[in-house]
């Protein structure tokens, strides 16, 4: 299928998903509340004299994003099961990769919205300075997010027709999330500690490679995962 058609169909799927979410607002609200609650609990459930905020904040940030993203990814294909819309998508004369790309874009927007809520709250609760490093931090979060959302979108499609989809998704996804997660935590720690950017370039490169490899793999594997 020509690239413009692939992109057009992907955008149709993504725009539809975002419109559905905009109309219902159920998933974004529940995940946003989850992010706020986790950060509040961490804020009160730590000993501020034991570990400094700058050392603790990166781990808390990424643990929060990880579980919030899993909650979000669970709904990605769930909405296609209601009224069997997934069959309609599979029947449409479009490249099945465009369904994956559309879902990926919608999930990225969704998770990015959660991250937009989470970062200022982290700065507020943990008193860490984010503004001086906003550009590099945004790039780091974007690179890490693309990787695990790419894998998560694929696994969401694989598990959605199973009985224990909500359990299976994290079980399958978490092992694949460990590399980008650990690189992101280390790089975020360096950034928030005010270390030079050259110290995180290596991790950013690894995240970029991870993104390219897993987006390509997911595009390749997706058509097979949605066959009944």
């Amino acid at each position: 299928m020509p690239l413009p058609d692939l992109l057009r169909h992907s955008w149709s799927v993504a725009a539809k998903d975002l419109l559905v979410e905009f109309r219902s607002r159920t998933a974004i609200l529940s995940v946003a509340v989850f992010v706020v609650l986790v950060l509040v609990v961490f804020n009160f459930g730590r000993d501020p004299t034991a570990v400094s905020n700058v050392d603790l904040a990166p781990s808390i940030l990424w643990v929060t994003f990880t579980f919030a993203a899993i909650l979000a990814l669970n709904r990605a294909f769930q909405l296609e099961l209601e009224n069997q819309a997934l069959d309609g998508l599979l029947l449409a004369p479009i490249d099945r990769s465009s369904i994956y790309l559309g879902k990926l874009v919608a999930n990225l927007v969704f998770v990015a919205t959660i991250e937009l809520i989470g970062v200022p709250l982290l700065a507020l609760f943990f008193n860490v300075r984010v503004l001086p490093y906003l550009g590099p931090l945004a790039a780091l979060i974007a690179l890490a997010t693309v990787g695990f959302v790419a894998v998560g979108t694929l696994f969401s499609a694989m598990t959605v027709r199973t009985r224990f989809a909500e359990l299976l998704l994290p079980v399958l996804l978490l092992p694949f999330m460990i590399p980008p997660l650990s690189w992101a935590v280390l790089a975020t720690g360096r950034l928030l500690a005010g270390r030079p950017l050259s110290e995180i370039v290596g991790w950013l490169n690894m995240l970029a490679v991870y993104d390219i490899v897993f987006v390509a793999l997911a595009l390749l594997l997706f058509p097979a995962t949605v066959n009944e």
Partner: protein
Amino acid sequence: MLRAEGLRHSFGAVRALDEISFTVQPGQTLAIFGPNGAGKTTLLKVLAGLIQPQRGRAEVAGGRRAIGWIGHQPQLYAPLTVRENLRFWASLYGVSVPGELLSRLGLEEHADRPVRALSRGLVQRVAIARALLHDPTVLLLDEPFTGLDRVAAEALSRLLAQHGAAGRATVLVTHNVEEGTGLATHVAFMRAGRFVHFAPRAGRGPQQVGEEYRNAIA
């Protein structure tokens, strides 16, 4: 226009399709009757390419673009309006929503209501509009009259008759002989994944077909 050759498919130990072969020519409407669990929906899904059969093959002239599907479920997004749903599906087929389609199905006044706010019958009408918006040459219908009120059922029957008269093919599966026979040019009875009867309707009415069906299925 549509051909199935030696289709065989199982779900675990259950044989859903067992050596099914038939063709449907332009202008023909094949009504397949069978009890629940006979394999009717599986057959339609194989014809649509949604299930790869373990043996045999199914071909539809024109591929996926040529197929319109009306199934048990409407394949619509409940939070979106009727118009938004139809626009979305039309965009995947590279067409715009034909204006007269909404009026033909009596949906104009409901076009800006979310699907979740519609009655079961109206939702089914939207599902029919969704299936027809790209002007398919082959219609695959799985119990399409379910949930329709009398007026909507008559409107659907008229649409299907027009579809056949325009030289297009239809495969309709149902367990209700009354509603399917009138539209059919050919009739098949299905039991345990097999066609136990396949023939032109040849003027037989619902009563005669119903009697033959009961004898064949018993």
